[in-house]
């Protein structure tokens, strides 16, 4: 176990020291993954298709947005929701070391939800918009001009109040390979030579 950890640490250090620093103002990060989630209030587990977009204003600050498309419930054959999509926008503060990027983000959001009427014994159900608040802790490792690894953990607070009240105290996980691109025109960049 210790050996595996040391190899991983060495690999991370190797990747993070490779080449030029990639985290610069106007760096655009695009990420997508299948995101499992757990509602810590009632132990319901869900899956989402997750998209994330981030623009760095400075290496330490960025604007961060997330979109979640509801795929279904994991621990039940008939899901409690007909749909439960969500959108978040907010900011992140980054602790950057070489190309290692640990960040904390705060986001405001909304979810568009509708409960499954069959599960709750209703003849029909209403759809509606619910406000959400989220905090995210994440790590990005930029190892290439166009690619990086990411692992994000998001904690979400909110409540569905249409037909049946359901609290959202969700932990959502996302990880994978992300795409990055510096959208600032090269001619505007300071000449490093």
């Amino acid at each position, binding site marked *: 176990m210790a050996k595996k950890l040391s190899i991983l640490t060495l690999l991370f250090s190797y990747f993070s020291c490779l080449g030029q620093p990639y985290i610069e103002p106007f760096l655009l990060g695009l990420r997508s993954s299948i995101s499992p989630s757990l509602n810590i209030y009632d132990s319901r587990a869900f899956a989402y298709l997750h998209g994330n977009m981030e623009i760095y*204003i400075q290496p330490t*600050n960025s604007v961060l947005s997330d979109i979640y498309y509801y795929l279904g419930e994991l621990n039940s054959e008939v899901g409690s929701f007909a749909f439960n999509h969500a959108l978040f926008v*907010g*900011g992140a503060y980054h602790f950057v070391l070489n190309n290692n990027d640990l960040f904390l983000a705060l*986001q405001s959001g*909304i979810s568009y939800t509708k409960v499954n009427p069959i599960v709750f014994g209703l003849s029909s159900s209403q759809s509606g918009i619910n*406000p959400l608040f989220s905090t995210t802790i994440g790590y990005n490792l930029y190892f290439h001009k166009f690619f990086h690894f990411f692992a994000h953990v998001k904690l979400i607070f909110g409540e569905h109040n249409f037909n*049946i*009240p359901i609290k959202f105290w969700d932990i959502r996980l996302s990880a994978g390979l992300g795409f990055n691109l510096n959208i600032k025109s090269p001619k505007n960049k300071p000449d490093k030579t």
Partner: protein
Amino acid sequence: MKLQKFTHIVSIVFLTSLLTPLNYAQNNTSGYLFAGIRSTFNVFSSDGTGLGSGGQLRLQLSERVNTEWYADYISINVQNVLRSIYYHIGWSVLYYYLNKPTKLQPYILAGHCFDYNRKTVIHNPEITRSRWGSAVQIGTGSHLNLSQYTDLSLTIQYMIHLTKELDYQRQNGTITIIEHSHAFLEGHLLITLSINYKLFRIWQKN
């Protein structure tokens, strides 16, 4: 004992750093437009606790005076009986009482907003009622200037509704939504956390 002393020193250094004038502080800061995203926590109201999402624009008029133009959508679960939705569209004037901008930039604020409230019985959405109203708010808060372009702001304000409130009544198992016969000086305490980004300068003082 040593740990306590160390904690005190760290706290003093931290607070001093927060209140040290910013090295990127502009000589005149008027004319800047900021855009932000905000989350509002509704507490100590007759409806109960709730959560809101919204956005804001901030236009700085002078070094000491800023204005905030906001819109919020707040949802409150009233004792698992009603869904109370508030839409707020309003403005506040912020006054910075410290001489120079620091990393922590406290302010007091006051303002006005138009609000729309719709109350709906959660289990029977056909029973619903709404009202339009007006409100005033007063509070305090602080920006935490994360950089020249970004700040995180925490505001605590009390909003007084200048209108007749909606409430519910349960009679023989039937729920009805009623309007009070007169307005109260009652409202809600709103705790708002926002992240703001400097967009551009609309005017420049010569």
